[in-house]
């Protein structure tokens, strides 16, 4: 695995793993980030995985660009031909598909609402990266058959937990914000909770699966979350990618 390295000013370095968005590239980035978690480098402050890059921020007082780059090259060599040490997780996201734009998404694609739900749920979406707002996952893998352009008139406020479609992307709003996505459902699960010890639920490089629930189940889960008795279900997933 030959990576490209670029300095980002004097406190950042960018590792480029590929030029196209693929699941394989993303898994390599996750493996590299996992390695950094397990083998911390003194002077590295934090890192941000994205579609094709991993950006590492560091303290130049502890590490020069040259010495950090050398360390990263060594890690990259070690990673070669290795399988992921830890399995990916699949976060199970219970979703009540009763969104205001569900009829539009169905009509736009010449399908019934049930078909849209069936197509959207039950499969594993890769969380390519997090960004845009706290806890927002950029998901890959939505079937083209339900792709729908953004709303012509964006809404001023979309409730947290709203599940939407924009073009061939799907995502979940972690906090109330304006937006133009077609809202097809809502999850009671909190993706972002600033008061919590782990404020962000999801992590890039892992997967997410929407599971269709009824309105009653939505209420039950919502109440369980308020009582602090709900734990988001996860499953392990073998990805079988070597770098």
């Amino acid at each position, binding site marked *: 695995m030959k990576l490209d390295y670029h300095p*980002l000013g004097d406190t950042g370095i*960018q590792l480029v793993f590929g030029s196209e968005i693929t699941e394989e590239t993303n898994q390599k980035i996750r493996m590299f980030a996992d390695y950094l978690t397990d083998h911390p480098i003194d002077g590295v402050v*934090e890192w941000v*995985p*994205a579609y094709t890059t991993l950006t590492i921020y560091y303290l130049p007082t502890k590490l020069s660009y040259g010495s950090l780059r050398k360390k990263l090259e060594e890690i990259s060599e070690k990673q070669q031909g290795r399988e992921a040490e830890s399995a990916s997780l699949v976060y199970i996201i219970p979703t009540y598909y009763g969104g205001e734009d569900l009829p539009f998404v169905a009509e736009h694609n010449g399908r019934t609402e049930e078909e849209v739900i069936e197509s959207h749920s039950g499969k594993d979406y890769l969380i390519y990266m997090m960004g845009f707002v*706290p806890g927002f996952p950029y998901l890959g893998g939505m079937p083209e058959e339900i792709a729908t352009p953004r709303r012509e008139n964006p809404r001023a406020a979309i409730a947290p937990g709203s599940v939407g479609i924009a073009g061939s992307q799907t995502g979940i709003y972690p906090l109330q914000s304006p937006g133009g996505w077609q809202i097809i459902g809502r999850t009671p699960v909190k993706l972002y909770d600033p008061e919590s010890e782990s404020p962000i639920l999801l992590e890039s490089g892992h997967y997410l699966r929407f599971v269709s629930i009824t309105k009653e189940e939505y209420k039950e889960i919502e109440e369980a979350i308020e009582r602090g008795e709900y734990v988001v279900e996860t499953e392990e997933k073998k990805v079988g990618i070597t770098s």
Partner: protein
Amino acid sequence: MPKDLFEVKKPGLLTTIQDDGRTGYQQYGIVAAGAMDSFSMKIANFLVGNSGDEGVLEVTVMGPKFDVLSDAVIAICGGNLSPTVNGKKVAMWKSFEVKEGDKLQFGQPVEGSRAYISVAGGFDVPVVMGSKSTYLKAGIGGFEGRALEKGDVLRRADTMEGKSGRALHYDEIPSYEKEMEIRVVMGPHEQAFTDNALETFLSSAYEVSPKSDRMGYRVTGPQLEHKTSADIISEAIPLGGIQVPANGEPIILMSDRQTTGGYTRIATVIASDIPSLAQAMPGCKIRFKKVSVEEAQEIYERHDRFTRTLEKVSG
């Protein structure tokens, strides 16, 4: 027990609590935030005896008016926004005592655009995800996740006395010019620009636009042309990254920038020059100067040695 310190009579244009920013959460999409001018923030803290990264008030252009509710040692550093106590001018870059009943107020901006108020012991606000910094868009941190409003009462942690009369040597006080040279490390998307654009970028004067805020500084000047596209696959964007969208006008990314972005970046401002840039008012002229990573890191080390010496002296 925390003590009431300031009652806000006028909030000013944008007054928020900031520290060194939120680290470790950018991978989850949480913006770093933090003081725009981290140098002034640190000095303000050292002068009252705090650790450098304690939360301070960041005051923007038109400053606030406070009633002082209890005696305390404070310091004001950064841009000169004409601070007064009971109508009398107070020295900046020097710790001093305010008394219950005093009125602390700011006037006209004279030089620079952001001032920092520290208090011995620090402001009593919760630490959210490891930081006291206010991130306005998500309503995180600082004083109830927002800018100060009239009627708010700020408290200070009653853990230390603080010493008044400590000052930064006048040789070390930065001056904020109307024209400044900002050093950059080129890349990472140099190859996305025409040769002409790269030359123009390094040889022209750019003017800070009024459409500049804590997220980014827009600068106007000769447009920078892309070879083909201004867009990239979204990736992490650093403090000081200079992104150039399709309209060819650079935006320098500052403290409240998003964690990731999808525009090409021609260069990155070196960490040591962010504080002076943070003080630039609209209309300021900027020239970008290319340095190598190695040079930038030497400058960083020098700055760091200086602030660490001050920390020792004050601690």
